[in-house]
């Protein structure tokens, strides 16, 4: 089933045209990567899908629900992890997960089960009971990834999911994302780490100056451009 359908998406901020007609689809269980240079429109696209920004033109639907007209239904199905997200510093990690779980699981036992799952994903050991303000950048990011994934979204929207994480933590998070995808979660992610994109994504779209300039599986793109890695595809397409 199609999890996400973006059709001729246009997003303007006054006179500035951030997204100029972007189209792509993502199926259930698929990991789709959105890559591009800074200011290309990746984050804007992700924010529109997440119902944070209004659509200027075109349409975006999540499991058949329009993000503008049926925003409440869409938010029940998605989980969005911004690139520079934060957590409430006065709460402990566990309290923060409990706060978020409360939006998705009103019943006490279900909420507790979700929090336990989140604590497992975060893998912060006893530090989960310390205040977020005492966490390092990497620990905060692990907590936020846990927050995003513990709710078992049907569509996960992840902007730089492993930002600030060391190699080992990044590998663990990538493995986690792949596990969720295998279980049926559709994933849209954005990353500047081309290795991560190549390892994780089933399909990639390269966005530049608000338009998709290339799309396909990593293998297809590498073959098409006669290169051995996605980073070279990126440089070739963007500088062309």
């Amino acid at each position: 089933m199609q999890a996400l359908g973006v059709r001729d998406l246009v997003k303007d901020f006054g006179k500035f045209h951030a997204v100029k007609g972007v189209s792509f689809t993502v199926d259930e269980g698929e990991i789709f990567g959105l890559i591009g240079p800074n200011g290309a429109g990746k984050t804007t696209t992700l924010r529109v899908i997440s119902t944070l920004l209004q659509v200027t033109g075109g349409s975006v639907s999540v499991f058949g629900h329009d993000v503008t007209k049926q925003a409440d239904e869409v938010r029940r199905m998605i989980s969005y992890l911004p690139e520079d997200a934060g957590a409430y510093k006065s709460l402990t990690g566990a309290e923060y997960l409990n706060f978020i779980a409360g939006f998705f699981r009103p019943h006490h036992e279900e909420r507790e089960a979700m929090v336990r799952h989140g604590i497992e994903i975060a893998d912060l050991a006893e530090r989960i009971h310390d205040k977020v303000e005492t966490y390092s950048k990497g620990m905060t990011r692990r907590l936020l990834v846990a927050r995003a994934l513990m709710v078992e979204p049907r569509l996960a929207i992840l902007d730089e999911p492993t930002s600030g994480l060391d190699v080992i933590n990044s590998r663990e998070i990538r493995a986690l994302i792949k596990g969720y995808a295998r279980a049926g979660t559709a994933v849209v992610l954005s990353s500047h780490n081309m290795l991560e994109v190549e390892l994780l994504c089933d399909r990639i779209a390269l966005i530049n100056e608000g338009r998709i300039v290339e799309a396909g599986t990593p293998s297809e793109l590498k073959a098409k451009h006669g290169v051995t890695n996605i980073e070279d595809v990126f440089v070739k397409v963007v500088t062309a």
Partner: protein
Amino acid sequence: MLTPQTILPVVVMSIIFASLGGLMGDIDESITARPTVGMVDADQTDLSRVATDFIEHNAKVIYNGTSPEEGLKKVERSDGTALLIIRQGLSASIMNNTTGVIEVRWVMRGGGLTDTISTAGVEVLLAGLGQEISRALVANHTRLNTTIVLAPTVRNDTTILKGKTLEGVSPSQVANMLTNQAFVVPVIILMIVIMSGQMVIASMGMEKETKTLETLMTMPTRRSSIVAGKIIGAAVVGLVAALIYMVGFSYYIGSLSFGGLDPAKFGLGLGPADYVLVGASLFLAIMAGLSLSMLLGTFAENFKSAQTLSFPIVALALIPMFFTMFMDFDTMPIAVKALVFAIPFSHPMMAFRALMFHQYWLVLAGIGYMALFNIVIIAVVVRIFKTDRLLTGRKPKAFSGKTGWPLIDALARLGAKR
């Protein structure tokens, strides 16, 4: 440094102090002007004519007859301050070494401290009247008790205020009696509004600074629920803090002397229904403060800018506090009346005094106005929460023209210039 945020507070405070200066100037004029009085000489003796001649020379007498009721009506109609009644037997009492009685029926138009300014002239007149009678007694070489010569008369005060006749009290005593509410309630409301309001604005600034707002906005909950949650949370904390403050401040004010008069003794006490109305007025005023704070908070970029944005709330709470502390709504100039009525925080500040004098229309009108005010502001806030403005600081394309939301456009222009 020359930004709207730094210049605006200076300009607004200058306007406030200039207005207060003008008000003080008007008060000064009132004090030095001749008082407007009526008089009734029921004694009709040489001594009483000394008194009436003195009054004629030192006041503007608008009634000089024999009927106290008619005299009082004339004083009320002509914006006079008091009706002075020289009781029959004044001269006889004094000659019998007993103080004579001068009855003073004061006409107060409002319960504010400034409403007692006009009575100062009459107080001076009465003091002078006593001295004039003393001079007459000395000049006539009367063999009277020295005490009587020095203080030949006593006053019997009755104050008429908003249709209520308060026997045995002067206007200054009435104003003192009302001062407790006049000072305590506005200060408490000011504290609640400032504390809670700053909490809401700071919360919005912190959410943007710590990047938690985007996550919150993608949660499966309505925008109106997020707005309500922030307002209610701040309201609870603000009310608890205000309760603590109220106990302490009331104890402090209670320890000061305000004439020791009990309003209930004069039929000015409040019943249970009145307290319900005060409570409703207070609640709606707090909600108005929080709604406005949420609106301002949507324009906060971070915690620091949030502090600047709380200034309009502080100013809006200070303006009615200053006016209602010193003036009665009934006697305010029309422009000030309109301004005070328009500011939601004014209504609980005026509620106690209004209910004492059964001015239910003012309290109920205030409650109705504040309810409407809250609905409109919260609707505007929820609308902003649904737009891009909250996250990007930019006007959405649809708002780039004349939108019918001039407040949003004005604040957006202010934010854009930052």
